[in-house]
């Protein structure tokens, strides 16, 4: 997509001249690093067991259902 297309595709947000002001690249870089630090901090946190338990239960239920329907066929 060309820059012209991008500019034309953004009317929903209105003509906001401020959005076109480019930040100092060093500021952008600093914000980028903070974003990653924030996000990765949560990504690297231990995953609660309850999610793994939930998925194991869903899979077991599906297996039982599949097994039951096979039994009916036989």
């Amino acid at each position: 997509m060309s820059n012209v297309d991008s500019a034309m595709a953004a009317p929903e947000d209105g003509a906001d001249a401020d959005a076109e002001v480019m930040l100092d690249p060093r500021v952008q870089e600093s914000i980028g690093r903070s974003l990653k630090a924030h996000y990765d901090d949560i990504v690297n946190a231990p995953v609660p067991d309850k999610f793994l338990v939930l998925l194991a239960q869903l899979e077991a239920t599906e297996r039982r259902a599949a097994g039951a329907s096979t039994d009916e066929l036989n």
Partner: protein
Amino acid sequence: MSSTDFKDGLIKEIPNLRAFAASLSGSIQLADDLVQDTLLKAWGNSDKFEPGTSLRAWLFTILRNTYYSLYRKRGREVQDSEGTYAERMATHGNQESHLDLADFRKALAKLPEEQREVLIMVGATGLSYEETAEICGVAIGTIKSRVNRARTKLAELLSVGSLDDLGPDRRSAAAIQRVSSEIVGS
């Protein structure tokens, strides 16, 4: 795709789902409820996932829709009564980066959510502008404009506080100066 492969795919995405959900809702408790709902919906609709496409983008779409239809109001209530996760969440870094991170999270929580979500998706999750645009159901140009506005607003917020008595021009100049000196200092 077998259900075991699908399950393994979901397990791999849980950390990213939690991080995105926490960024959206501003609360790690709400985030975990949101992730649980997302996993249940994903499991129930696994036949609609097209193998070979991005599972992360597909799950983020489900999570985001769930958030906007069910959680947005609760998120605001939790933030009002308990403060945002910015003040409460345990972090895993050292003390110095903890302080920086807490400041950053407070600023991030103040962004309008439509700006916050795209900044996170484009800046931290590894999703492309195209995928982000598809997840949000808007044009790529809209995503770019929201990202720009979010960055500008964040730079402004991160400098406010100690500089409240300065005019807007001096304030943003000070923001740039401050961030620049952090870069030089690090």
